[in-house]
């Protein structure tokens, strides 16, 4: 068999390993969904009445705010799940199992692609749960079938990019706790963008940051696809950011994985 077919079969084997972990320990998937669900409930029921009226729409109030906040909450799930990915990669790297993989004649990158594809599946599941809760608390998307397909496409791109980044960060960390901490800022980013309130309500410096950081185009694209709000050039920006983060994360992760392990 050629190296290319090995890379595919070995990646599939590693993906099966990750899926088995996921099925055996469903708490991992539930935890990734838990934090965003708590934020959703807090923001909708505690703050939503006031925040919704501040949006400046015709209806206002809590009902308007649910529809505003859900895209940000969905992306927050991508961030919490990325933290889970970093933890599971860090566990692998600190245990002997990766040393075993390195001394076997398998496609080297398959260990990492297994993690990325496994996390992609797990994050989609977590997001489906979060979206389910959102629908229960009054989220009313206007997207048609094409819109939903667009949503899934954009979300897969975003998860793919963030997962490669978190795999790389997990290997920089060298310990499980450090890997978990390193991903925490990712959870804050949706808040420091257009996830919870419009960026034009923020003070100048923060607004500048919010408008240029990747989560804002991610959120605006999702919001446009789900709710029919104007997207402008956000979809192009979002795809560009995804490509950049995914490629950078992949190259970085590969380099870190191929570096010599030090005891």
């Amino acid at each position, binding site marked *: *068999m050629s190296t290319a077919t*090995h890379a595919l*079969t*070995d990646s599939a*084997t590693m993906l*099966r*390993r990750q899926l*088995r*972990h996921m099925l*055996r*320990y469903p708490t991992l998937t539930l935890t990734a969904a838990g934090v965003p669900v708590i934020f959703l409930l807090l923001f909708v029921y505690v703050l939503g009445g006031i925040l919704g009226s501040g949006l400046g729409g015709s209806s206002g109030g809590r009902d308007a705010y649910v529809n505003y906040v859900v895209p940000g909450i969905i992306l927050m799930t991508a961030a919490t799940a990325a933290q889970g990915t970093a933890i599971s990669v860090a566990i692998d790297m600190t*245990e*002997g*199992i990766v*040393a*075993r*993989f*390195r*001394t*076997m*004649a*398998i496609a080297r990158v398959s260990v990492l692609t297994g993690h990325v594809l496994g996390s992609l599946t797990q994050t989609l599941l977590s997001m489906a749960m979060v979206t389910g809760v959102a629908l229960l608390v009054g989220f009313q998307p206007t997207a048609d079938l094409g819109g939903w397909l667009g949503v899934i496409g954009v979300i897969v791109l975003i998860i793919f990019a963030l997962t490669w980044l978190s795999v790389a960060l997990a290997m920089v960390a060298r310990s499980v706790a450090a890997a978990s901490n390193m991903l925490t800022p990712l959870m804050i980013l949706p808040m420091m963008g257009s996830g919870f309130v419009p960026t034009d309500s923020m003070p100048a410096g923060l607004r500048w940051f919010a408008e240029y950081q990747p989560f804002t185009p991610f959120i605006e694209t999702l919001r446009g696809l789900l709710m029919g709000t104007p997207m402008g050039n956000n979809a192009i920006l979002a795809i560009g950011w995804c490509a950049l983060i995914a490629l950078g994360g992949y190259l970085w992760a590969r380099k870190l994985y191929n570096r*010599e*392990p*030090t*005891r």
Partner: protein
Amino acid sequence: MTTNLDHPALVATAVRKAYGDHVVLNGIDLDIPAGSVFALLGPNGAGKTTMVQILSTLIRADAGEMRVAGHDVVRDPDAVRAAIGVTGQFSAVDGFLTGEENLLLMADLHHLPRRERRQCATDLLARFDLVDAARKPAVTYSGGMRRRLDLAMTLVGRPRVIFLDEPTTGLDPRSRRTMWEIIRGLVTDDGVTIFLTTQYLDEADRLADRIAVLHQGKIVAQGTAEELKRQVGGGHITLRFTDARGHDHAAQTLDVVSRDDEALTLQVAGQGDVRSLRALLDRLDRVSITVDELQVHTPDLDDVFFALTGNPVAEQEPAR
């Protein structure tokens, strides 16, 4: 598999490795015949693990030529990887998977045909006495079971050369003996070549056809267990006396290696076999000296190290 029984399974010439100023391996030469057990003996921090990591393609040496199972370690690492199996010092099992799933994972990664992979897992579970625990996650295994599973996983690809880095460290005496039997079985039943590292002379003695002693990055002695022990000069016998008079008298009568006036003990050279013990006691009897207590001390790693390097083990480089 290209291993030829007429060719050595592992050859290394002038292998060097340093981390910054700290030289870990300083010119190691090895020549290990196929189908034999080779033990690299040394205390913590001697460079044993580094040597295993280099030979198993985990890290690169700074200099030196190495061929494992006929393949160049530096130029053709994938061919080496296809021919070897490694059981490291730290358990390399997936704790979230069951024992059986761990073995099936290895079978998949070795691209075994579907029918063979299940058979392979079933056989190994039976051989390593893991049938009852096959469906339990590996995190629940005891140290000995984990180590057995680890070794079973190493065997899935039918490696020709197996590296075992301190295979019994941390195991209880019974698990240790089980592991020894398994390792000997690998050579006699499967004809593989085994490269093991150990801190224990008795382990090397029990398992290895040849032993090399690693000290401060160099091999200071190499040979069979018998040859090494001869270099150590055998063990010694400690005699304890009831009173100072007997102690003093005995010290004048015997060829004493060392004496301790407070504990009333003497050490004399001796192997501890029945014939020389009887001769020793007869000699004391003739001059009517009563021995209170007698201890036979067989040579261990400390003696080997002391004899070869003049340093006790404790004064070695600390573990990195």
